């Protein structure tokens, strides 16, 4: 229709593509390059990779990562699936509230969970002490494999839960009733009808959990102690190799990316093969149970929800506890921790988090709208490339992205390491996919004839975009942007590599305070972060009238 080569769309495609090439593709190729070329001679070499696979000290981290991830994923499904089914099938008192609590426990960053569980089940944790005193045991706290699995399972089951809640909502109850009328028992209906129909969702959500868990850095770093996973190894190698030969860290990062890309492709193939389009005319109705069954279901649902939200409660509670020297709780309540972080030192960490987060979310929303519009409505070769590249950040673990950005931008022509800009870029790249996904979903629902109507009435394409398309997209865009925003606030794995004293964030502060053993300050920072996330979510619910987010 518009043959003009230099219209708004082509120009924005070119700009977006250039940005992606500069800030995503170029840094990743640098990593690959540093991994396979000798930094001095420039000759091709696989020595870094051989080095990695020769020593158990290194390659064990792959096994560790997989062990932790597989176990946590399975446990997350085992908890999330029945919980979702119970809430859909059984009338549970306060089920709306429970759903919100589960979403809240999901949006909180994993490392806060790790920190909270250290406080409860760590070496000098409350529960540990209680158990040891009561039973005269020498339980040394939940560190290593068990600790990581505990934290990541509790962090991940909400994702499975939210996805399966959605799938069950779209499952037409007539299907179940049809099976019932054909003589199928309750259990048979579950195994023959419901599970097969939501299987694609179970698979999709568990693969998402898998991707998140395997790339998580904060949890194994804090609670893993000697149990090292790949993101931890990459971080440690990178720090110790800075100034020297960064090739080894790059090689590990490459191996890691190969693993995650494989998983990602697997997920795409699976989700394409096993998907039913369902829309329920008559969704499943939650029905009240009676007697013991009723009480038991309530206990189970409340207990799981409580365990899920426990880390948030713990950090908020401990933030009001007095400590001596920041390390040991005295048992008295006080506002001392808040005084420490708010008045006794500069507020940089807090201000930086909001400031950089705000810059990032604005960029994410603007670019996200353009990318989703271009990839859905202006399908051409360039925009297909953009579509594929916009999925990349799902695949690239934060620590790898951090290293890649350092490699790429620590020298002329673009020297931005240590600046606000590089942090914002990392935030944008890592958290954009949430917004793109929800924006793409909503633009696909807007009929092209809406645009045509506006154009036929005399509006230009640009005007149609700003006056019609953008306002119509906005609710969907914001549903994804809220997820981008809260996950920016908790971003740790790339920040920990990229931050400088001027760009330190809340997440980084929490991490460093925990490492230093300043639990008082760590709790206060965590409380600020948690409360901000919860408030953002509640404001979003209030503004949009929704009770769901796009994950």
């Amino acid at each position: 229709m518009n043959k003009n080569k230099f219209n708004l769309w082509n120009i924005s495609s070119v700009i977006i593509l250039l940005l992606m090439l500069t800030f995503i593709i170029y840094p990743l190729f640098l990593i690959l390059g540093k991994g396979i070329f000798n930094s001095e001679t420039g000759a091709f070499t696989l020595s870094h990779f051989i080095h990695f696979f020769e020593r158990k000290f290194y390659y064990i981290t792959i096994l560790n990562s997989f062990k932790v991830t597989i176990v946590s994923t399975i446990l997350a499904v085992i908890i999330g699936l029945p919980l979702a089914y119970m809430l859909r099938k059984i009338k549970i008192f306060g089920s709306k509230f429970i759903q919100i609590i589960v979403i809240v426990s999901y949006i909180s960053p994993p490392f806060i969970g790790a920190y909270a569980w250290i406080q409860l089940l760590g070496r000098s944790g409350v529960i540990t002490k209680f158990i040891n005193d009561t039973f005269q045991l020498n339980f040394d706290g939940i560190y290593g494999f068990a600790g990581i699995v505990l934290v990541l399972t509790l962090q991940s089951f909400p994702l499975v839960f939210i996805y399966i809640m959605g799938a069950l909502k779209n499952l037409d109850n007539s299907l179940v009733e049809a099976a019932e009328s054909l003589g199928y028992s309750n259990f048979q209906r579950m195994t023959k009808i419901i599970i097969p129909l939501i299987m694609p969702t179970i698979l999709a959500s568990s693969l998402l959990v898998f991707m998140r868990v395997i790339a998580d850095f904060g949890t194994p770093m804090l609670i893993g102690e000697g149990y090292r996973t790949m993101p931890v190894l990459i971080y440690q190698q990178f720090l110790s190799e800075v100034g020297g030969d960064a090739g080894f860290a790059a090689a590990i990062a490459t191996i890691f990316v190969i693993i995650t890309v494989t998983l990602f492709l697997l997920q795409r193939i699976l989700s394409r093969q096993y998907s039913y389009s369902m829309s329920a005319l008559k969704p499943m109705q939650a029905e009240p149970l009676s007697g013991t069954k009723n009480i038991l279901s309530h206990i189970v649902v409340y207990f799981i929800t409580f365990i899920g939200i426990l880390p948030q409660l713990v950090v908020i509670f401990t933030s009001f506890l007095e400590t001596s020297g920041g390390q040991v709780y005295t048992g008295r309540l006080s506002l001392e921790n808040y005084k420490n972080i708010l008045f006794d030192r500069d507020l940089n960490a807090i201000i930086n988090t909001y400031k950089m987060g705000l810059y990032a979310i604005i960029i994410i929303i603007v670019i996200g709208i353009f990318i989703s519009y271009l990839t859905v409505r202006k399908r051409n070769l360039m925009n297909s490339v953009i579509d594929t590249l916009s999925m990349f950040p799902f695949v690239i673990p934060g620590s790898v992205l951090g290293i890649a950005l350092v490699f790429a931008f620590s020298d002329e022509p673009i020297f931005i390491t240590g600046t606000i800009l590089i942090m914002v870029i990392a935030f944008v790249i890592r958290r954009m996919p949430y917004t793109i996904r929800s924006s793409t979903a909503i633009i696909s629902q807007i009929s092209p004839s809406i645009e045509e109507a506006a154009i036929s009435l005399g509006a230009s394409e640009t005007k149609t975009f700003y006056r019609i398309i953008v306002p119509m997209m906005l609710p969907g865009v914001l549903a994804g942007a809220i997820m981008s925003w809260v996950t920016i606030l908790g971003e740790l794995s790339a920040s920990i590599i990229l931050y400088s004293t001027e760009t330190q964030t809340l997440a980084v502060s929490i991490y460093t305070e925990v490492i230093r053993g300043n639990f008082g300050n760590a709790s206060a920072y965590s409380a600020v972060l948690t409360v901000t996330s919860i408030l953002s979510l509640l404001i979003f619910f209030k503004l949009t009238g929704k009770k769901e987010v796009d994950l």
Partner: protein
Amino acid sequence: MSVSVNIDKVVKKFGEDKVIDKLSLDIQKGELFTLLGPSGCGKTTLLRMIIGFHSIDDGQIKIDDKVINHIPVNKRKMGMVFQNYAIFPHMTVEDNIAFGLKVNKIGKEEMTERINDILKTVRIEEHKTKKPENLSGGQQQRIALARALVIHPKVLLMDEPLSNLDAKLRIEMRNAIKNIQQEVGITTVYVTHDQEEALAISDRIAVMNKGIIQQIGKPEEIYSRPANVFVSQFIGTSNIIKGIIKKKEDGLYVHLNDMYSVKMNNLKQDEIVDKQEVLVSVRPQEFIITNKESGIKGEIDSTMFLGLNTHYFVNLDSGERVEVIQDSEEEEILPEGKDINLNIKSKKINIYHADTKETLIKAGGHDEQK
């Protein structure tokens, strides 16, 4: 104020596929012109070429003798009403209608006046400040119509505007559209696949199939004298049975079998040879069930009583199967399995060349009596 639209040998290709090949058409000032055809016949493509959503690969389209091929859509000043209404959901009814006026920089006073006028014309004044989501399909379609008309377009284009409405509302809205179109007097191009709708609403109809115009004419011409077998079967119901034309001294006879023939006075004599094979198109109401010896013999296979009339599905001795309609009031209902004899109303039927499938009836043949 109204304009004529001249479409001159336009071509549209999607890849290698020529969807429309050298199609020509003249639409007169102020008429409601319908493009009618089955889905995929190119009618919507042609409409979208007129408004400009599709480029014109060859040929030209003229509005009042001015070529518009290269005028962008938003400068063409054509109003379009879409199948799914395409109402802006985030604006009130009034804002929807004002949208085109605002981008065309119409002054405040005139804008208010025009909006109120058009709201009155389409009868949705009371919904002015509502959000469209609270309105019914028919009301939304009225907003769409108002929004298209309020910019005083040169041409109004309607793309299957009634297909999303239920049957009753469809009839109500089609009368409303016809009335509003006449009141405004705007040249209108209307696309539909529903032949009944086309007959009811149009001044003239172009029947399209596979990108080619089969026939252009007034509704009654198209119904009573279809130009070819396709049109005869697409518009209404037609039974096609084989026949042979024999030339006799007193004129041409169509033989439907050895014993039954009818004399035809309105055939194109020059195009017909003796013993020519033809296809005879008989509408169900053009059969007469008779007691006479001569006729087409058959057996009633099934009977369907529809109140006003009765439909019979009859298996003819020749193996062909036809539908016959009789007035319920005048005749008694015949039982299934009964052998009957059929005659045909020779002045009404149509005769087609067996190979070309084109009509053998003289132009204006339906008026002619010898």
